[in-house]
């Protein structure tokens, strides 16, 4: 179990991580997302004991991440974002070296290691310096997992991997989850979060702006479907259940549904003759944009307090402006829906 309590690690007044609070429970995959430079890697390196937190406490399985790093590493696997290995070593030599560094000497059970090498198709001949970045990443994954650790900390593990390997890694994460492992997965890709994670934390400028389970995240987003009907559908029924739509032609529609009401939409559509039913792929940006745009509450409060102190009269208009801004920031789709409805 990974636990962060009020962890602050400052590089400067704006760079670093500030008052981070979150837990990753046993048997849970925690998605750690956020734009570049938000502090994801800093958090992870702090958890690995490579950086010392300025304030607060970070623990893994109850052990302090800095002072007890070596004890933690016994049962932990870490895949770094940028893999740097000992370039002049051969692959087998490196794997043996790390195994020995883990205190395992002689020919013990290497079945897990062999199966991982096979699974990720790691080329074991040749030197590390001649390997491509993708291959190095795969080697790092094998290294991180070959001692069957209880906790996995993965820092953008799929970056640099081809789609096949990405998929294999995600499958592996799911398998490990089923075996009760604790996983912290930092990533940029929504598909990965959707496929593997139970909970998501959104980091922005060093602040955790969101920490919610994947079900509520789905409920918040609006799903869009492209539907082709054989006959003009019963629009009244669709409207009645609260779904938005946009009409392209007599039979082509785009339907909008809240993430948690897809089952209702299915029931409504079951009365219609549907020819084509395609879900519109939503990118990470679309879904997370609103989360990324969330103001950091902490800072906002400070700003407001300052405003009140200095210019109390101007405070109200500013707040109104903010609200208007927020309204504008709503997804385009909903605006479209409104427009269509008006028409």
């Amino acid at each position, binding site marked *: 179990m990974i636990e962060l309590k009020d962890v602050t690690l400052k590089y400067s007044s704006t760079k670093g991580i500030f008052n981070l609070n979150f837990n990753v429970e046993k048997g849970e995959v925690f998605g750690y997302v956020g734009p570049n430079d938000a502090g994801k890697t800093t958090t992870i390196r702090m958890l690995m004991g490579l*950086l010392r937190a300025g304030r607060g406490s970070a623990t893994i399985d109850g052990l302090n991440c800095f002072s007890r790093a*070596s004890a933690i590493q016994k049962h932990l696997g870490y895949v770094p974002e*940028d893999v740097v290995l000992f370039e002049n070593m051969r692959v087998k030599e490196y794997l043996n070296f*790390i195994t020995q560094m883990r205190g395992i000497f002689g020919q013990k059970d290497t079945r897990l290691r062999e199966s991982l090498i096979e699974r990720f198709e790691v080329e074991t001949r040749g030197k590390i310096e001649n390997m491509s970045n993708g291959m190095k990443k795969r080697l790092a994954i094998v*290294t991180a997992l070959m001692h069957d650790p209880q906790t996995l900390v993965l820092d953008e593990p799929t970056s640099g991997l081809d789609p096949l390997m990405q998929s294999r890694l995600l499958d592996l994460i799911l398998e490990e989850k089923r075996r009760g492992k604790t996983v912290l997965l930092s990533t940029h890709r929504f598909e990965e979060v959707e496929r593997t994670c139970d909970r998501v934390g959104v980091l922005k400028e060093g602040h955790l702006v969101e920490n919610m389970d994947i079900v509520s995240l789905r409920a918040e987003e609006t799903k869009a479907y492209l539907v082709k009907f054989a006959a003009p559908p019963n629009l009244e029924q669709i409207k009645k259940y609260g779904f938005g739509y946009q009409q392209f032609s007599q039979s082509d529609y785009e339907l909008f549904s809240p993430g948690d009401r897809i089952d209702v939409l299915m029931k409504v559509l079951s009365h219609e003759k549907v020819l084509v039913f395609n879900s519109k792929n939503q990118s990470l940006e679309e879904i997370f944009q609103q989360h990324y745009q969330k103001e950091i509450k902490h800072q906002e409060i400070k700003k407001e307090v300052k405003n009140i102190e200095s210019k109390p009269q101007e405070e109200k208009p500013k707040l109104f402006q903010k609200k208007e801004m927020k309204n504008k920031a709503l997804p385009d789709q909903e605006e479209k829906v409104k427009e269509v409805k008006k028409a």
Partner: protein
Amino acid sequence: MSIPLFLKNIKNNTLLLLVFVALMSIYLAVIIYIYDPSGVGAMVDMMSILPAVLVNAMGFGTIDSGLTGFIASLFYGFLIYLFPMVYCIILANRLVAKWVYEGSFTSLLCTPNSRIKIIVTQGIYLLASIAVLFTVLFLVGYGMSEQFFPGMLDVKVFLKLNLGACLMTMTIGMFCFFFSCLFNSTKLALFFGALIPIGFFILNTLSKLSERTAFLGKFSLYNAFDGLAIVNGQANITLIIGGFAIFIGVLFVAAIGVFSLKRLPV
């Protein structure tokens, strides 16, 4: 100490050690070979051609007529500062700062070994490899002397000479090691790692130039080791060894301290 890491260090740095062992052994062998027991006349003649100031600066001012003194003044007077210094600067950088800078040190720390254990291993390798260097030098010096001038080498004094020089080099090595642990970039580690021993060396050389610059020697670590004084029995070898050992200990602890607390680069 971590054995696999120690073995890896041996594998990584043996070539470097071999180069320095070979260079210094050949030099020592040649010095012993050119020794002329009937008098150091030729050598003195050659030295008289050069300006006295230069000869003094290089530590060749007094050339003892005995074999041990001859070796002490020609080998343990000047060269013993230069070659091992370069070795220490390179090795100390390779053991810590280079890996930290490249990022591969992370893969060491992501094994169940504490920072202290890893740094202690690296430090022990540094000290051990210097010990190997001087053991080889002692054996080469002893072997050559016995081969060409049997019975002429005062083995006990020669051993003291090597022991003193070995500990002095270890101290210099620990200075470099400390900076290698302190800085996250190789540039800074190399700069300070080189600055200190070269500074000592320059101060030592300047102090020998004239009476008026002699006070500079007090600031140089190299001044604590005087080959000829050991041969003449003027120096207290226990004091020298003890002093260097304390220096090594303090620097080692400081290096471990700064490394175990610092933030490693992203």
